[in-house]
């Protein structure tokens, strides 16, 4: 397609400005996290990195005192990782199996059941958070990883995506597999799962990021510091910035923020190619 120079220039200007708009705050947070707290307190936010990178990040990672709690950032990262992975993997598995049942097995109420699942897409977690809390509390699962993850792993979004994908798989593939002596479980494992790899990657990334960023749910479910996720940790650090009449720990708070965003970014970067492929095209 022909594009005039002027048009290319405008397009790029808009894109560059948009990118700067998104990236600058992150950069400022990063640059400011590498100075001493006194320096930030006196001079405000910084555009250029300072020399305290290792000191600040080291303190945050390994010293519980720096995060104003009884856990270090490393432990919180670990908790977040467990939540993110459990959330994403659980959702992928559950929604794949649910979609498999809905698409490939003719049972009564399959269609209404699907639409019930689908309609829950419209309800955010917060709507059911109190009853869910009640259930988890009664099961005695407060302050456990199970309680943190299990009530969240049913996924209407995932079920919907996998249903659409399975419906686009040609019926002949199922028939060929039946003639080849593959039962329902064999067909699922040998044919459908490998075909869904890109789809799985896409759902996994989305769900990992969503899981990682959960705030309200882990806040309610965990009263024990040992189970704090990093997102809660950030909140906690910012809350206590002005406590005790000391100079506020801006650099360390920023460092924690930056650290919280690294794993999701890494996941997206690493899985990006599969991710885009999964959303755009499906190999059949």
């Amino acid at each position, binding site marked *: 397609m022909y594009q005039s120079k002027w048009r290319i220039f405008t397009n790029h200007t808009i894109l560059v400005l948009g990118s700067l708009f998104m990236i600058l705050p992150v950069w400022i947070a990063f640059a400011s996290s590498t100075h001493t707290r006194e320096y930030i307190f006196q001079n405000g936010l910084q555009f250029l990195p300072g020399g305290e990178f290792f000191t600040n990040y080291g303190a945050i990672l390994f010293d519980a005192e720096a995060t104003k709690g009884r856990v270090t950032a490393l432990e919180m990262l670990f908790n977040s990782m467990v939540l993110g992975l459990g959330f994403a993997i659980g959702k992928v598995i559950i929604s794949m199996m649910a979609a498999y049942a809905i698409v490939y097995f003719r049972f009564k109420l399959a269609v209404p059941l699907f639409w019930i699942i689908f309609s829950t897409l419209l309800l955010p977690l917060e709507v059911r958070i109190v009853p869910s809390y009640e259930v988890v509390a009664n099961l005695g699962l407060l302050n456990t990883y199970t309680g943190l993850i299990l009530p969240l792993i049913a996924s209407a979004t995932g079920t919907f995506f996998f249903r659409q994908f399975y419906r686009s798989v*040609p019926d*002949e*593939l199922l*028939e*060929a*597999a*039946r*003639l*080849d*002596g*593959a039962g329902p479980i*064999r067909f699922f494992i*040998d*044919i459908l799962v*490998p*075909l869904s*790899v890109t789809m799985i990657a896409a759902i996994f990334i989305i769900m990992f990021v969503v899981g990682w960023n959960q705030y309200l749910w882990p806040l309610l479910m965990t009263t024990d510091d040992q189970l704090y996720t990093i997102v809660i940790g950030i909140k906690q650090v910012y809350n206590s910035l002005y406590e005790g009449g000391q100079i506020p720990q801006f650099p360390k708070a920023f460092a924690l923020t930056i650290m919280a965003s690294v794993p999701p970014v890494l996941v997206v970067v690493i899985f990006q190619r599969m991710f885009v492929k999964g959303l755009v095209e499906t*190999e*059949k």
Partner: protein
Amino acid sequence: MATVTLNQAQKTYPNGFKAIHGIDLKIEHGEFTVLVGPSGCGKSTLLRMIAGLEGISDGEIIIDDKVVNTVAPADRDIAMVFQNYALYPHMNNYGNMAYGLKNRGYSKAEIDAKVREAARILQLEDHLERKPRQLSGGQRQRVAMGRAIVRQPKVFLFDEPLSNLDAKLRVDMRLEIKNLQQRLGITSVYVTHDQVEAMTLADRLIVMNGGVAEQIGTPIDIYEKPASQFVAGFIGSPAMNFLKGKVSDDKKHVTVGDGVMLDLDHDVEAGRDVTVGIRPEHLELLKDGEGRINAGVRMVESLGAETLAYLDFGANADNVTLRLQGTHTFEKGEKLSLSVPASKIHLFDIESGQRI
């Protein structure tokens, strides 16, 4: 090697639609049977019933003396080749061919031997490590056939396997399938809507229409003695000409179009209204004035090896197609003198379309 027998096989869908109206058929050992018919005639349904992919509503399907009505597809010892190949896209060609054997618990060595043998027969040895999408349509179809032959099934089922290929490849693959089937001697059922494929491949042809087997016979039988007007019109290209006619009082002639008299050699009552069928290749071109039929030329199509002329048989008749060997040049409106041997005239009942 196996026989396949259908006893009053019927298929009614839950919504009440009757796809197959009770078909009786016996396919012999090693026979190549072709199901042919227009789309929606139930030929694919019938094939899928034999495969076990569709249930049977009434009647029996018997493979080698064993009623298989409720036997799972995998346990019927059949193999099927699909129109769109239905290869597993994530497995390489070796994996595609090996999958059925693996599920049946063959050892690695056995699987390897069988797959390599099939690949050798189908000239796929160089492509075993590749994925289906890296192959051409013809090669994919060969892999699909390989997947069928590695298991050495009792029956091969083909569901329009050549429809996705281009014309030239279709001819090549047609010969290859015929060749392979004869070499392996496996009982085969082949579904197609292409009458050339049907005529060339079949030992026995089944012409289907509206869920009913209109005629079962050898291709030549069906060509020469079509049992109904439908079969007559479906088999043969260009299609048979049909004209309204009336049998003369002396039963020796039939009048068609605007008073054209044709010789008749049939046992039919005088004065009866009939449909007269004449194949385009059975009209003979004579010198001016020698033929019974005089018809003007409406259109000419020259195909090189043959010439098709569309003739005017009078105001109340459709175009009549004339097929001549070689090239001929006719003027538009030119009058041709033609005749048809009495033995090449087909008569059909006006109401039922049945052969008289």
